[in-house]
């Protein structure tokens, strides 16, 4: 994720979507990278902002879909 948005503090931010830190382009880039890295395809019904508000939430989603 640092490769996509090096300016974002992914370790501490918990409102990545709600505070508008990540936009839709960033989310799509992250989804694509997750597919490449983990073979996990995040589909449209998982596009809940809550799933992308923090690195921890994204990791939980990956674990759930694995």
């Amino acid at each position, binding site marked *: 994720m640092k490769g996509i948005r090096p300016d974002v503090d992914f370790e501490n931010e918990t409102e990545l979507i709600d505070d508008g830190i990540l936009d839709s382009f960033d989310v799509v880039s992250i989804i694509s990278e997750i597919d490449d890295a983990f073979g996990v395809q995040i*589909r449209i019904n998982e596009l809940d902002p809550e799933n992308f508000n923090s690195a921890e939430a994204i990791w939980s989603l990956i674990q759930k879909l694995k």
Partner: protein
Amino acid sequence: MAFFEFNHIKVAGVACAVPKNEVKTESYKPVFGDEEVDKFMAMTGVKASHRTLEHQTCSDLGYRAACELLAHKGIKPEEIGALLFSSHSPDYRRPSTAFVLQHRLGVPEEAVCYDISLGCSSLVVGMQTMASIMSTSDMKYGLLFVGDTAGKSVNPHDRSSAMLFGEAGAVMLLEKTQNEADQIKALVRSDGSGFKYMIIPGGGYRNLHASEEVVMCADGNERTLMNSFIQGTSVFTFTIFDVPRLIKDFWKQTATGPDDYDCFAFHQANLYILKQIAKKTKIPFERLPITLDRYGNTSGASAIVSLCDVYGAGNDNKTIKVMACGFGIGISLGATSFEINTDDILPIMEDDEIYTEGLITNPNQLYEKK
């Protein structure tokens, strides 16, 4: 599975036309801000696009392309057995634009003419439909029109769409031959669960007189019900997963792979999507021509625009193997393969001609004696 294989049918030529008016993406900086526009250009690759005049339509552009292509091939309109207009930008709510083009070109009454209501997948599905018609009839030539003027329905303050779309009309001539090697293959899929991802909600018969009040939408863009809506993240998600799967399935069906094609004429959705598709399918990006930078996302015409851009200027009389792929509104997606001689790929034309006979601004024009 909707996999099609047509023998003895070839792509005899392609041509396209764009409007003369070029809009630089940078010109949107006073509206959307420098940062937003710079990020948009980096992500989508769209640095300029061409836009129609108020009453200029996709069929006007296709007409010019068809005239040039038929003249190049030495084929008379009387020889056309089928005319399909595959687009979401008809001249009228009814009748089909195919009839307007038939009349304007002088295609005979014996021809079958109708519209196919599709956007970004219109080339692949249009080819599949035209080849199906030709395979089961005695006709020799079919003329397929594709393209859109999507910019006309975009709210100018919608940052997700205002800078993305270019406008173009393209035409493909299909010919029935005696040659065994002339083949067209197509794999087509549809996913209606995504019908709201790209939509103009008003103006159809569900809500014919929809409100034209401007509403600030949840994604921060202003639109009316008569404007185009794109749910970008949903569309992205569909394209980066489902399109690579379609391409790999097409290769499996045809026992081919990325090394078997000279050119990947893919729908120019946006640069990021095309890079992702190429990465996930291992398509060499140098064989996937990009025209987004100069023409934007030209919907169903974009694959032909790219072919014309790369091969239109040359005349080296070389046969190339093309894989085309279209995907988008519907959701509709498809892949096809065909061969074409590069001499039958015309250069991109610029045209602003309007079919004045078709412009009806007063009902009583319909009652005027000829």
